[in-house]
């Protein structure tokens, strides 16, 4: 078992959070986008990161996933400190993220998009390409089999040979998630997975997220759709003005005066959304 795998089972037992950040700050040209965000993401649960627009949610996600550096603060995955690690290193620890605006690898086919995801591919080494073609071919077949399973699950099997740039918006969103799943993440960070998506697809994606939780993946999702948050999330973190405002279950937070104030003008009563 890998070192991270051992840490995971330990964390599970001791309830060490899967992902933790303390006092994250980030400023852009003097404007503080994030000003002291601290929270724990519980292991094996679905956590929502909510807050009014401009609260710094996407910036926090970028920092957590290594796409941006922070000016101050610390971040931990399990027991390992990953503050300001570049995104590829964070990804190799098992944190996968999706993007708010789907970023498909346009020139590659849908299947190839997934095949990029697995780590430690023997075929990425030049020496192996020259000297061990058989090994590569075998690995490719294994990966392709698994990728086709994933595609089937997400309803993208028919599109396996289509170039990713030709997909519709909803299909690209599914591809984005499927690709992250293919990398066997331990933590999956979804940036507004339901944004701009029709209600039927929302149901489907919600179902996939629940299935992922049931197979042991920790999920963090940035989301505006509080109806979805109420239905599938176990835990909620509220961010406002770049700081953690409150944490807990959504039902509790709705009673919280500060949270209500932060959302002033925005409807947080889920039943009214329908």
């Amino acid at each position, binding site marked *: 078992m890998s070192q991270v795998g051992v840490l995971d089972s330990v964390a599970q037992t001791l309830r060490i959070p899967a992902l933790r950040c303390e006092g994250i700050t980030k400023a852009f040209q003097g404007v503080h986008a994030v000003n002291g965000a601290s929270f724990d993401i519980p292991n094996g649960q679905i956590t929502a990161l909510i807050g009014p627009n401009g609260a710094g949610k996407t910036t926090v996600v970028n920092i957590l996933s*290594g*796409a941006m550096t922070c000016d101050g603060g610390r971040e931990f995955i399990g027991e390992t400190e990953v503050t300001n690690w*570049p*995104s*590829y290193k964070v*990804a*190799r620890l098992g944190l*996968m*993220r999706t*993007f708010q605006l789907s*970023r498909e*690898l*346009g*020139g*590659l*086919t849908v*299947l*190839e998009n997934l*095949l*990029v*995801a697995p*780590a430690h*591919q*023997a*075929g*990425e080494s*030049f020496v*192996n*390409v*020259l000297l061990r*073609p058989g090994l*590569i*071919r075998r*690995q*490719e*077949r294994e990966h*392709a*089999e698994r990728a*086709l399973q994933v595609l*089937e*699950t*997400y309803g993208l*099997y028919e599109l*396996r*040979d289509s*170039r990713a740039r030709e997909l519709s918006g909803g299909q690209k969103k599914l591809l984005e998630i499927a690709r992250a799943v293919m*990398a066997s993440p331990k933590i999956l960070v979804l940036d507004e997975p339901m944004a701009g998506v029709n209600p039927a697809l929302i*149901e*489907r994606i*919600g*179902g*996939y997220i*629940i*299935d*992922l939780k*049931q*197979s042991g993946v920790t999920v963090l999702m940035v989301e505006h759709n509080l109806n*979805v948050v109420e*239905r*599938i999330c176990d835990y909620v973190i509220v961010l406002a003005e770049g700081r953690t405002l409150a944490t807990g279950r959504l039902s509790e937070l709705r009673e919280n005066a500060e949270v209500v104030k932060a959302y002033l003008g925005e409807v947080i009563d889920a039943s009214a959304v329908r």
Partner: protein
Amino acid sequence: MVYYVFTLVFFLFDYFILAMGLNIQYGETGILNFAYIGFVAIGAYFTGVFSLPSSLNTGQHYILGLGLPFPINLLLGGLAAMFFALFVALITLRRLRTDYLAIVLISLSLVLYDFCNNYVSLFNGADGLYNVPEPFAKALGLTVNSFIPFFACVTAVVSLLMWFVMSRVTRAPMGRTFRAIRDDHVVAAALGKNVFWMQLKSMLIGSFYAGIGGGLLIQFGGSFNPTAWLPGETFVVFAVLIVGGAGNNIGMFVGALLVETLLVHLPAFLPEIPGHPGLIEYFDLALVGIVLMAMLWFRPQGVVPERLRRAASFGVDRPLAEKPGSMGETSIPA
């Protein structure tokens, strides 16, 4: 007539190699290497000075002069280009996004050109290297005339070998990761790929090919000087790539055929227009530029577009449908 055809054949296969090198850098990985011809020149010069005897004997000024035989000097020339690429990549790749990288690289190309032109003791300055020993000429008793067909065939063989290696690379996960980086390097990094390291590998492989191509040039012609590699020559290789079809090894060959052979070298055999020396050559190069622009406008994927890699090529059967407890059947609790 024979020598004319075989000269064209030589340039066809040589530019095939050069295009493959640029393809792995630009077509596959998306690195806009505007200094490509500089690496070709390094390969040519080093191949030359590895096979020329000591400079004391030849009346030229250059470094090294080790008198090594073919193909050792050629391989060393390729390695020299590769080391130069390592140096350049370490300084520039990490810090610069595409257009700034292009600026720095083209500046590098101009400075390198300037430097080789002026610093005579390096590679004989503006005169360049000449009387470079022809490979196998003594051993096989080749005359000046029979050397041309012979070496054209040698080049063809070398290029096919290099094509075999390159197609392995592009078919492998390595090639796929290169293309992922080309399409969106942020996503590639988010998926755990060390983008810088992969880009570096791409630069090294491509530069090796550039060096080999350059080395073959100096061995074929017996000489090499700065006029052979004005920075604009990089553009001709780009034209080969884009006209033929970037990201595609067959496209490289087609591009080499169309651009290098037909456009560049065929007209060189036309008679000169009296009173206007070099006019045909100037028209020719301008035409290459126009052809490239037309190609980019009307058919940017090139004559031979990038191959679609189908699922079937991975040798998998259709996965079983709906195993018990498969994902996708759960929906959100109401």
